[in-house]
């Protein structure tokens, strides 16, 4: 049990690094809230997996990536804004998720603690998180150009549509890793709040990324610790999210702009 908790903590700490980085890009792309909704796309898959006695993470992954692809296609084919496309898919996903998730598993689906973390699950999660971090590092130039101006980026040779899909998938992959301890409702809290916190504290890009990663890491580490020692909830997700919100509140007091 202790070993599982240790693995979960290590994975959560690595997840916090990826979440901080992905959150910074999402904030600059003005898709934080839209991205938040992406995490809910996992709900029908988790629910179905619970109902069919399958691995809930696999179910969540299936509908998460399917939903992400649908969002991208809706955007491309209909010209809908990202938030509109995500809104449509989200409403459908939440309704299906609520309908199919057995009521005794609903709280776990929404707030975390999805089964036991096996060594294989740990390694897969770690690989996913490292992949996200490496991808953001490798794509940072293209992402910066596209965030500034899609026309200028496209004229420079950046494949905009492919980059959009790639980022949505990185976002979903990060959410997927966070599902286990944050749940479908809170998985994106660590993507949104640390980047919003960092944005209050700096106008410079490198410190922005660094502060977001630090805020995310501190939220997870302190959240796990507080939960283990004080609150003893079945999942650390809510404690982590609340701590992240507290850090954001502090950043408002210290804001530089």
């Amino acid at each position, binding site marked *: 049990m202790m070993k599982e908790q240790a693995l979960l903590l290590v994975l959560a700490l690595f997840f916090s690094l990826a979440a901080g980085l992905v959150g910074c890009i999402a904030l*600059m792309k003005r898709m934080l809230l839209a991205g938040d909704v992406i995490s809910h796309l996992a709900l029908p898959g988790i629910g179905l997996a619970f109902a069919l006695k399958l691995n809930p993470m696999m179910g969540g992954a299936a509908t998460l990536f399917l939903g992400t692809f649908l969002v991208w296609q809706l955007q491309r084919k209909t010209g809908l804004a990202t938030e509109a496309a995500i809104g449509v898919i989200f409403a459908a996903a939440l309704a299906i998720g609520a309908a199919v998730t057995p009521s005794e598993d609903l709280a776990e689906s929404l707030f975390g603690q999805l089964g036991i973390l096996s060594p294989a699950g740990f390694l897969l999660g770690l690989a996913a998180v490292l992949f996200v971090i490496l991808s953001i590092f490798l794509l*940072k*130039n293209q992402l910066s150009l596209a965030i500034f101006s899609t026309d*200028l980026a496209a*004229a420079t040779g950046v494949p905009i549509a492919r980059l959009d899909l790639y980022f949505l998938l990185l976002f979903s992959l990060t959410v997927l890793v966070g599902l286990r301890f944050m749940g479908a409702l809170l998985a994106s809290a660590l993507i949104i709040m640390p980047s919003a916190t960092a944005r209050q504290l700096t106008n410079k*890009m490198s410190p922005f990324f660094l502060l977001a990663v630090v805020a995310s890491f501190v939220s997870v580490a302190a959240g796990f610790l507080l939960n283990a020692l004080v609150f003893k909830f079945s999942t650390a997700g809510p404690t982590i999210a609340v701590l992240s919100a507290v850090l954001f509140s502090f950043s408002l007091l210290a804001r530089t702009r």
Partner: protein
Amino acid sequence: MTNRLLTVTDLNVSFGNREVIHDLSFEVRQGDCLAIIGPNGAGKTVLLTALLNLIPYRGEIRWSREARLGYVPQKIAADRQLPLSAKDLLTAKAGFLKLPAGELQEVSAGLGLSGELLNTSIGALSGGQIQKVLIAFALLGGPNVLLFDEPTASLDELTEEHIYELLHSLQKERGMTVLLVSHDLSIVYRNANMVLCLSKGKTCMGPPKDVLTPAMLQELYASAPQYYQHSHERHREGDSQVVQEREK
């Protein structure tokens, strides 16, 4: 003999049922400064974006193999809250194109972009400063063709003068080919050696003295716009610059 850099044949661009460019054909030779003029809605910006392959079109746009394009857009609708400095932006392009380390410094120095300006957030830059950063952005990668879309729209006269001096020196010193969208006919008269007029259902192309005639302008704009031919004399008395204008 001058090289043909761009050949456009039967270009058509439509948005839904609205046809913006209809059967347009023209050529641009190396070293040309082609001004693209026409009333609002004539498709000047659309033409540039089609030439950059940013929008779908019918017909043929053929750039020669030697063409390396740089693009200076009319206006960037960038989020003023972005935590992105001018240097971040230029570094991102230099990194994406894997340019040698010194090129960014070289281009910045050539345009007189100070370290302070480069480290300023994009949102805090003035219109003229942003335009200079965009020109630096376009020059990274060593383009030999620059596409300028109303580079001085909404800038004050002094900044406008400065931008066009820059444009002129780029043409002169680097033999740059320029495609320039402008509403300002006096700028066109001064900088361009060829003019392409776009108007609904009508196009014409030729040297400014042949194209910018009262009759042609009357036809293009419905009423003849006034324009000025500028000539400049620089006086080294302080930094003052005397601009003489005479109505043409």
